[in-house]
Structure formats: C-alpha cells, structure tokens
C-alpha cells in the first residue's frame, strides 16, 4: 500500500506458519517496503492519513521509525485540519464510511496533495462507491485518485498469534442484556463475520469451521453467524478464482488463490450463555 508503484518488493511473511504472523506481515506487505532507502525515486516520500479505528490497527504493528523507513514523513488523522502539501502523494487508510469519503472528496477538490491512494479497511459498499464517484466527478478531481483498494485488514494484530476485532465495546453486556433485539444480534454477528473474513483472508488459507451446536436456543445465532461467514468466504473464493480485483492481500504477498496444503481450522466459542431471549420466543418448545 505504501509503495505506490505496483511491483511486489514486499516483506514476505518469512515462512512462519502462524496466521497472525501472516496478518502482521499482511499489513506490512500492504504497506510494502522496498530495500532502497526512503527518498529515492522507488520509494518516495508520502503522507499517511488514517482515521481513529485504523490508527489502532497500525499502531501495534509499525512504530514511527518503521513508518519513516517505508517513506512516510507525516501521518495525520483524517478529521484534523490539514494543510496543502501539493507535491507529495497521500495514502489514505480508513474505514469506508460516508464521512470519510466526503472528507477524501473534499481533500481532492482542494488539491491538497499530488496524488491520492485510497485503501479501505473493509469492503466498500456499492452504494457508497457510487456516491463517492459522483462527488469526485462533480468536483472535477478524478485525476487526483491514483488507486482505490479494499484491503480487508479490519482487525488489530497485537502479537504473532493474537488478534482482536475493532468492534464495539462492551459486547458481552450488549449481547446478553434482556432487551437485545434480533436486528442488534444480526448486525453484531455480521460485523464479526466480516472481521473474521479479514483475518482469514490475510492469513491466506481457507479454514474449516468448527463450532458448538448448542441444541435448543443458540441455533439461530450460531448458525446465522457461521453460515454467513461460510457464505462470505464462498463468495469471496469465487471472486478470487475469477481474479476479481478487490485488492485481496495475502500474507505471502504472492498468489491470490492459496491452495491449502496446510489445513487450517477455525474454532469458535462464545462465553455468553445460551439464553438470548428472542430465540426463546421463536424456538422455544
């Protein structure tokens, strides 16, 4: 992501088998590193702009000096007042929300930077993409946008074998309270499914999913989640085999379709208890 040309002098994941090492290397390889010293024509100076959730993704992985080694002279929050630096390209790493897209479009209209490379932590919705396209065309700054990728890096990788999703706080309390609705649960579980998709995608291998089949009450929640994850992955597999350019970044910086010689197993558990009141209403005896 940070090398603005497309050659793949990426950091390889150094042959480790752990998937979060792949994840850590995934974010580094998406911020690709060249061996040539920063400031040369290959690895030019650039500005990194992020939002708050993406800052928490980057900060455990890359320190300021490591960013500098990759050519980032300045890193800023998207919501702050930023001055124009017209001869330097900017790399955006943000979540695909309406507000972020508006701010990017405004920056392009004001021509703050020379070129703009946009990377989203998760998939950009079609409707938002169309809105963004309209804004950019209306402002006449389509030429500013050099690239746009979905990076699928929506998780915080704390260590080689440890990650967490940047989801809502107090999730246990929210999901187990008595007034929780089906809609809340669905939204929550689909967020979690997308987060896991990022993890699995960055690790580069397609796992087999094992999960508890709690008999009466939890079927709804469990099955929705696991099947939606299953469904997401199936459709993504199809996309990948059709070489659809969604910027799918693999930990190994190489092939998009990973033939899994090593099978991965994804095992789920939930410390929450099995009683959610709404499933009881639907599925009780």
């Amino acid at each position, binding site marked *: 992501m940070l090398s603005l040309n497309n050659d793949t002098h990426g950091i390889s994941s150094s042959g480790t*088998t*752990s*998937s*979060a090492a792949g994840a850590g290397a995934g974010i580094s390889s998406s911020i690709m590193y060249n061996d040539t010293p920063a400031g040369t024509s290959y690895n030019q100076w650039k500005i990194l702009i992020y939002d708050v959730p993406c800052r*928490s993704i980057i900060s*455990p992985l890359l*320190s300021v000096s490591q960013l500098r080694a990759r050519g980032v002279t300045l890193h800023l929050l998207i919501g702050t007042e930023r001055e124009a630096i017209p001869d330097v390209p900017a790399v955006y790493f943000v979540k695909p929300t309406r507000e972020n897209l508006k701010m990017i479009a405004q920056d392009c209209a004001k021509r703050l930077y020379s070129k703009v490379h946009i990377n989203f932590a998760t998939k950009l919705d079609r409707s938002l993409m169309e809105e963004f396209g309209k804004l950019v065309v209306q402002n006449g700054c389509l030429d500013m946008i050099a690239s746009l990728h979905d990076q699928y890096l929506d*998780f*915080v990788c*704390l*260590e*080689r*074998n*440890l*990650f*967490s*999703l940047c*989801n809502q706080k*107090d*999730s*246990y*309390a929210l*999901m*187990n*309270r008595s007034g929780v609705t089906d809609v809340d649960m669905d939204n929550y579980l689909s967020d*979690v499914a997308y*987060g*896991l998709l990022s*993890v*699995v995608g960055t*690790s580069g*291998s*397609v*796992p*087999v*999913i*094992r*999960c*508890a*089949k709690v008999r009466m009450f939890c079927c709804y929640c*469990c099955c929705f*989640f*696991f*099947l939606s994850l*299953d469904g997401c992955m199936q459709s993504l*597999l199809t996309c990948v085999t059709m070489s659809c350019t969604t910027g799918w970044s693999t930990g190994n910086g190489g092939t998009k379709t990973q033939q899994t010689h*090593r*099978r*991965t*197993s*994804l*095992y*789920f*558990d*939930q*410390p*929450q*208890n*099995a*009683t959610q009141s709404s499933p009881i209403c639907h599925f009780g005896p």
Partner: protein
Amino acid sequence: MDLITPIQHSSTYQALIDDLLLHRANRVEFTTKSEGNKRPQLKKFDLDADQDPFYSRHKFKPFPEAIESNGLELQDVTTRETAIRSKTVAGGGDDATAGSYQGDSFTGATSATDLASAVDSLPKLLERKKQLEMHTSILQAVMNEVAARDVPQFFELESALASGQYKNDSAKAKSQVMALVTDTSKGNVEDKIRLVIVFCLATTAPGSDVSEVVQAMANALENQGSNDSGKAADGQGVLSKEDRAKLDMGLKAIEYLKKLRSMQMIPTNISDAEDYGSKSSGNADLLSGFMARATNQATGLLAKATEKVSSMLGKIVKHHSTRVVENLCEMRPNTEDDEYLYLDPKVKGDVDIKALRQMTRAPYREVITFMISGGCYAEYQNLQMIANERRSVTYGSTELLSPCEFLSQLGKLS
C-alpha cells in the same frame, strides 16, 4: 461456556500486566511509588512480544520466574558491558594501531580486533540492557500491586476451586472463601468479588451459601472499609465512593451469575484437573530451587517476591477452551469433535460428517480460536500450551478484556 477464565486471577507475567496495570494495545502505563523526595511518575512503555527476546520468552512464565530471569540477565548484561568498557579504556592505553611491531605485536593486533568487535556489540548490548531495565520497572510495578493486594492467595484459592480440589468438600471451600473475603487487609473490592464469582461458578455450593458469603463480604467492607481506602477520623475504615460503586456493580454481577446458574445455563465447571507436563515432584524441585537461588541473591525485588509469590509456582491447568481445541485437533472420539458442526467453505452444500469420520483426515497445522464477546490474555496463554512445531494456535476475540473490565460488563447485566 467458560466464564471462570476471564475472571480468575492469574500468575503469568503477561496476564498479570494486563490484570493489574493499565494495559491496552501493547502499551502499559503505571505510576511509580513515591519514595522519599521523589514524586510519583507516570511511566509508559510499549511492549513488543515478537521483537523483545526477554518478553517473548517470559510472558507466559509464572511471575517469580520472570523476576528471577530478569535479575540474572540484567546482571549478565551489566558484567559484559563493564568488561567492554574497561577494554576500551585499556585499549586506549595500549598502542592498538595495526602495524605497531613491538615486542608483543601479536597481542597488540588481537586486542585491536577484540576491541573492534567489542565496540560493535556495545550498542546492541546497551539496547538489550535498556529493554531489561524497562522490564525491571514493569516487574516492580506489578510486584507492588501483587504485594499490596495479596494476589497469590486469591490465585491459589481460585485455582484450587476451579480445578475441583474442593469437589467433595464444599463446606471447607466456603469457609476458606469466607475467611479471605472478610479479611479487610487482603485484596481490594474487585479481588474479593472475583473470588466469590469463582466460588459460585466452580463449585456446587447452594445459592444460600453463596448469598451468605456475599453478605459477610459486604458487611466487612461496609464496616471496615477495603484495604486501600482511607481511614476516617474515628479510626474506622470507610468505603470510598469508588469502592462503593465497585461493590454495587460486583453484587449485581454475582446476582446475574447466580440466576444463570440456577437456570442451569452454565455447567458447573468441575472436572479433573489435567495439568500440563509438570508433575508434582517437578514442582517441588522448581520451588525449592527458586527459594535457594533467592536466598543467594540480594536483589530486593526477588526477596520480596519469594516471600509473597512463591505460591504462584504451581501447576497450570488446562482451561475449557484449551481442552476443546485439543480434542478437535486430535480428532478424539466421544468428545467435542463429534458434537461440533463442520463447515467447509470450499465444499458447496452439506458435508457428510459420517463419511468424514471414517476417512483419515490430515492433522490441522494451524488453528485459529475465536471467542465471541470477550477474550482474555489468560486464555491466550493457556492455549499456547498445545501449540508446538507442527501446530500453531492463534487466538482472537471481538475484544480483549481484563478481568475487571469483564466484571464491569457482568455488572451491567442483572
């Protein structure tokens, strides 16, 4: 459904940092104690478990071992540094330029190469020393908390309860728990609440027993205050506003869990403790070895550690999720491997599980364990016990919670 693991006190270095100090996204913050004229300072450190060799070796080790290793390594590094520095001083005295053919020209040449290699290694050594000193101050901060709150006693009792040692003797369990929670000199409000929760979830003690313990705890706290609240003018301890809020929240959490338990939503987690690797004789050796080394060394930190935390060198039991993952990976029959769903995204449609069971399946080389609604460092560490060269285990969750954060979420639920 294992609700004990996120609540229990732990004994390993990384889990203790997360539990006792302010720890978020690999950054730890704490205030040093004021000594003499020094004002308490706020210190912040970034921990990198992958790049820092000391931390990656010791984050899963019990706390006393981490202290000991830190002392030894720091000593070693300091000796090497002084040796190099003295060499550089002596080297200035010798005529160490190459090509000085004096009587001991050969020695002159070797000391020049020695000097060069020593000087090269000095920055790395200093870097390592800085990292070790950072860990010393973190260990000191953790030690202060551990000593002030008597964490080892809580840890010991909770491990005993969770591993089923009091399976047949719940009266004894109750009396031990009662003694600890009513002792105002030990533990703060949250420590006591956590012990009561483990007592409630890990034993078959009836609800009335639990209520009795809770009442006794609340009375003791109300009348005498907690050990870190100030004493009022009349000599009676007074519960501070924060402590009162914590007590209320804790009581709500206990009510919630009692309700769950009565609806039989949580299986009481009594199982035969399967300890990993270490046998009891091995542990006795470890402990006596530790004590012997401690008496030989003069470091204050270590001496304090021996006194307070030697009980943390015990066997580490496998938690529920570790056992389940192991069963799944090794495809053991009559375990969760039979009950769990099998979803394979590469196969469209249903997987014929019966046929799958007949086939020999390739062993899993990578496992990702994911906890919905809250994971913890203790569980992460426990899972690494089943990781080896052929199998890597990655742990993730929607959010990583310290025990007190999980407790506050439980408190919002009744």
